[in-house]
Each structure stands twice: as C-alpha cells, then as structure tokens.
C-alpha cells in the first residue's frame, strides 16, 4: 500500500475546466474523502488517479512514484463505483474472486488462498452466506456490498471508492457506514472516497477535501471542516438543516458596531470583530457588507420578545424532525431556519421572535449564490 499525492493537477475538457490546479497529499493508510456536489470534479479526480483519464497538467504520485505515464493496471489501485455492475451469470463468489483472477495476477494466488481472501472480505461485510447465489437473488443493499467486496478483495496500493453506499436506504446506509469504517481500520490501506453526503464524510474520514467546481475549498479533519469552515461553500455543505447565510450591512454608530439586514434585523456585535469583518467585507450601493453564517440550532425562537436584539418574523413553514421542529422564515434573498422544541406548535403566518446567538456567528467572504 502507498499514499497518493496530486501536484497542481488541472483537467480540461476542451474549454471546460473540470479540475483547477488541485493539490493534496494523502499519506499511506489515510481515509481521505472528496466531498462536494455533483459536477465538482470528485469522480474526475479518482479517474485521474486510476489512470482512466490523463490530466491536462500536473503530476500524480502513488507512493514515491510519479504515475502519469503508467497504465491503469500498473498503478495497482482498486476502484468501486456507485452502480454495482455485477456479472449476472456469475455467483457472488465468482463475482468477488474475479479481480484476483485477472490474467496478470493469475499465478499469485492458489485456489485455497483465493477462497481465504474471499471469505475474509465477505465475512467483514456480512455477506458470507450468499456466496452461491446469483446477483438477481440479492437485494439492492446486498448487491452493493458484493460490489464493495469485489473492489476490496485485492490488496492494492490504494482503494478508490466512488459513492459506494449512495444507493442504500437510510437505515442500511447507517450500518454500511460503520461497517466500511471498521473495514478500513482492519485493512489499513489508503482509501480515497467520493461522496456528496457530509455525514458520510464526517463519520468515515481521517481528512476531508471539500471541492467546488474543480477548485479545492478546504482540506482538514472532520472537526476542522465542521467547526471552522474556511468558506461559505464549506459551511453550507456541513449540516442538516444547513447553516443560514445572510448578507448584512456593517454599521458604525456612536462608537458601536451593528449588523443589519434592512427591515429585518439589527443587532450590536463586539468591536473586536470589526477588523476581521472588514477584511472580508465588500461595498454594495455605498454600504459595507459582510456575509454572516449562523447554524439553525443557534437561532433562538420564542413567542415573547426575548431581548432588544430579537426581531419579529412570520413563519413561512414548519417541518418536523425527530428531535426538534425546523421553522423556516422568508428573507429577501433566501430562507432562514431555526429550531424549536416539538411541543411548540407553530402555524404558517404565526409571528414569532427570532434572535441570533452572537457567540456562534461565522463571517465569510461572499462566494456562493444565495437562493430560495
């Protein structure tokens, strides 16, 4: 096994830039996740590492070797995709053993060793009792585990896993996630993992790279990505319900600093924040603007006016979750969310008092578009 490194990798399709000067260093044995929406360049990155595509610029290393000119076979990585693509005429056993029997590996394993290898991975994934079945006798979740077993039966330099559990229903996904993490620990092999699901990224990874439109937004541990997002894009990726982003005006008055959204709210903030805010602020119609981020759990909602900084808003809609109810408000450019206890029943149009917890404010440069 080996680490994987990208240096200044750019990938263009004609004029379309799929990856823009991407660099990262995933050391040997790390679980490294590429997180982003569809079209971000995640799958392209895996394809470049696997050798299915060639980068327009930049170097790709597996271990100490620059592999740009290696064939896919010589790179010795194993890739699993979202769609299962199992051979319908083969049994589960033969599907999983298939990569071990590829012509160039033929002499590596005896049939007994092959069987040991298949049993090891299938036992880890809990599918060891289905080995004699054909794929069409399996449920979707079982097929996905067979596909994962096939990708992970070899001992390659690194595993490249592209949304391997995306198709599973919610409950299976939760158990597949922990199984995969356990498997990763036991194998100890480098894993590059692609997902658009932030819970998978946080739960599984040693480190995460957030990527947007071919650009790296941030690389960090799950804790760093969630607690100190570098950009509004990363902040919005991490959390459900998502963080609120609001563009506000910075107002200085009588030696105090206020943040205000015209006609909606206005509250004072600590003066010490001014230099940080000004650094990332912008000018709009003569106003000094900054983007704030506040998670729904840090929005206080009450029937009575809780403080001078609370503002009144009509409820747009409420949506119930197991532990709390998400209340949506409509602002000028987007929606604003808060959480309330389930026993507080609110109806569409009810007016409530909303307050932003100023100790849990994020400040961002403006990069993502705000929409309803």
């Amino acid at each position, binding site marked *: 096994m080996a680490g994987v490194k990208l240096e200044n990798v750019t990938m263009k399709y004609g004029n379309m830039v799929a990856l823009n000067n991407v660099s990262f260093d995933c050391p040997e044995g790390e679980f490294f996740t590429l997180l982003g929406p*569809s079209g971000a360049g995640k799958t392209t990155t895996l394809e470049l590492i696997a050798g299915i595509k060639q980068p327009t610029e930049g170097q790709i290393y597996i271990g100490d070797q620059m592999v740009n000119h290696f064939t896919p076979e010589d790179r010795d990585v194993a890739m699993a995709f979202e769609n299962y693509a199992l051979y319908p005429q083969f049994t589960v056993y033969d599907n999983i053993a298939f990569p071990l029997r590829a012509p160039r590996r033929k002499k590596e394993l005896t049939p007994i060793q092959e069987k040991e290898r298949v049993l090891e991975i299938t036992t880890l994934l809990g599918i060891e009792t289905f080995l004699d079945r054909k794929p069409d006798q399996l449920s979707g979740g079982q097929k996905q585990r067979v596909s994962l077993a096939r990708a992970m039966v070899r001992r390659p330099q690194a595993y490249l896993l592209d949304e391997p559990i995306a198709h599973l*229903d*919610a*409950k299976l996904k*939760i*158990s597949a*996630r*922990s199984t995969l*993490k*356990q498997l990763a*620990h036991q194998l100890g092999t480098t894993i590059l993992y692609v997902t658009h*699901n*932030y*819970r998978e990224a*946080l*739960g*599984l990874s040693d480190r995460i790279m957030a990527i947007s439109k071919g650009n790296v937004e941030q690389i960090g541990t*799950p*804790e760093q990505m*969630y607690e100190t997002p570098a950009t509004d894009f990363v902040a919005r990726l*991490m*959390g*459900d*319900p998502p963080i609120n982003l609001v563009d506000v005006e910075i107002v200085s008055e009588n030696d105090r600093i206020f943040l205000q959204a015209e006609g909606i709210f206005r509250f004072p903030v600590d003066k010490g924040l001014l230099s940080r805010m000004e650094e990332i602020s912008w000018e709009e119609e003569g106003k000094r603007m900054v983007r704030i981020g506040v998670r729904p*759990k840090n929005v206080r909602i009450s029937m009575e006016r809780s403080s001078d900084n609370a503002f009144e808003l009509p409820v*747009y*809609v*409420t*949506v*119930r*979750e*197991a*532990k709390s109810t998400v209340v*949506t408000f409509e602002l000028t450019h987007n929606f604003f969310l808060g959480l309330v206890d*389930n026993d507080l029943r609110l*109806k*569409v149009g009810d007016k409530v008092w909303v307050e932003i917890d100023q100790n849990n404010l994020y400040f961002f440069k403006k990069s993502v578009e705000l929409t309803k």
Partner: protein
Amino acid sequence: MSTVEVKHVWKIYGEDVVAVKDVNFLCENEEFVALLGPSGCGKSSTLRMLAGLEEVTKGEMLFDGKVVNDLSPRDRNIALAFESYALYPPLTVYDNIGFPLLAKGVDKRVIDQKVRGIAEDLELTEVLKRKPGKLSGGQQQRVSLARALVRDPSVLLLDEPLSHMDQRVRVVIRARIRRIHDELHTTTIYVTHDQEEAVALADKIIVMSMGLIQQVGTADDLLNLPANQFVAGFIGEPAMNFLEGKVEGPNQVSVHSGGTPVSWAVKESIPKSHENSPVVVGVRPENIKASKEPVASGVKTRVDVVEYLGEERSLTLSLNGTILKAMVPIDFLVKESESIWLTAAPEDVHIFDEKSGKALIKFKS
C-alpha cells in the same frame, strides 16, 4: 375540503394475494396524513383504491360521509401525483400543468396565473417551455406534482412524489408541499416509505406492514409510544436498539450483558402475565447513557466504530455479537476497542413481547 374514511377495506389480487387486510382509518378535514411502510406493505394499493384506480375488494371508502366505491376517479374531486410521472410528452411543461384547468374550462388568464404561481413554488419557472422528455426525473416528478396541486382539489393523493429528487431539492419541495397544503386547506394523503418524510410532513401517520395497519398516531406517538417492535424499529434513525431481557418484577427487567445480567428499572408496570418471561428491551440510540467507567446496572459493550457527525458522535457497539448504536455528545471521547457501560433512564426503556412483538408498556394503541 373533505373527510376521508376507510372502513374494513380489503384488497385481494387474484384468488389469494392479500395486499390490504381489513384497514380502517379516518382523515379529518384539512388533515395531512401519511401512509408509511416498507415496499409491499399495502400503502400504495390503499391509495390507488382511494383514487378509484383499483377496485375495493371488500369494505367501504367514504368522502365526506358518502360512499365512493363506485364513483369513477374523475367524479371524486381528487388530485393525484405518483412516483412515475405520466406526463403528456407532446405538451410543454406549462401545458402539462395547465391541462386539468383547461379541461375544466377555466379562464386562460386564471390558468396562466395559477400555472406560473405553482411553477415558482416548485422551482419549475425556468423549464416551463420545455417538453417532459428534456427534463430530469426529479423535474418531471415536480411537474406531475404541480399538475396535481394546481387544481385546488378537495383531496390530494400523493404517492412517493419526491422519490426521484436529490436531497437538497427534496428538503425544499417537502417544505413547499406542506405550505401549499396549509394554504389550499385540502385533505392530503401521502404515501411514503421514508419515515423521515412522514415525520416531517404529516399531522397523523398510519404505519402499515404486510397489509395491516400497525399503528396510527402523531410523530410523537410513534416515536415515544410505539405499539409494537415493528413500529419501534421502523420510526427513528438510527433504529431503536433491541436487547434480550427477562421480566424480574413489575418495574424491573434483567438485561443480558456478557457475564451476569444487569437490572434495569422501567417506568410503567409490566403486566403480571409476563412475570419471569423473556422479553425484548428497546432503547433508542439517542437515549442511551454511556459511561467510560463501570456503573451499577451498566451493560458492558465494546466500541467498534466511532463516527464524528458534527453535532454528536455515533458509536457502533458490540454486545455478544449484537450490534448496538448510541448517539453521544461531542465531548464524549472514546476509542475503538475500548469498553463502555450503557444504562437508560426508566422512562426511555421500551418492553416488547418476545413472540408477538407487542409493546407491554409505554405504548398508545
């Protein structure tokens, strides 16, 4: 505006394939009701009978107190949106949405206003001029939904209307559906296999499995007072943990824990008939109290996996081959292969009959 009542309804396909078994429920006027269950549970058959697309084998369906069994779909004043879209391919999105109004002879200007309004709510404004063939699955599904909503029906029947949309869009459209329901004052019956969606939207949830109603209640009823082990395991994510136990006294169960069983208190009295009987003990992952030190009545488990999830940590634990889940606070720091001890507050412990799966305490029927 309508009430919908289902009385002793059966659906039998062919000779003996029983899809719906003696189902009874009432949807109040303006209520949002979810029919929830895994595939094959009978929820879609029930909805299709309400829509008039399938015959009722036995029993009665009533809208506003009137039996509708023999009314054709068009005479029921319902609107439908299904998982598959059934759009008219030669018509634009605009015309597809406006079609039900055009067919009723509504004024063109009114149609225009309504179509544009609903298109904006469902994020379809930009594709109004396109043909269905040029849309993604999720977009086609929204057109189908828009066509149902544009009619101001008295009963709205929706069958997995969000299943093909990606997560972000689904969450947005979900909120819009609830808002439109509130604004139109319709009675809505919504079929889904997704418990999160049912909890998010519905005033009342009807849980079905194998053709039978398992429980009818609010989200709180189903989460806190499940009638049986099926409902307990189906509602809530991650799913409720189930442990082997035995009744020791009216408010006491023993829970298997590696070596000697430990004793847990429960809040309500377990029926006397179950004294000394084996039972299933249920605790939700978020109600587990985890300790890194041995505690009285603690079930000793091994930590297999720790996942950081931003607001909390998810632990995967093993106990004699049984896998358990616990959600713990971010500051609960523990490593893989360490041991931890689990307890639960008496009010959070559920008890189910080992054979029938029926709840013995803490349930609402």
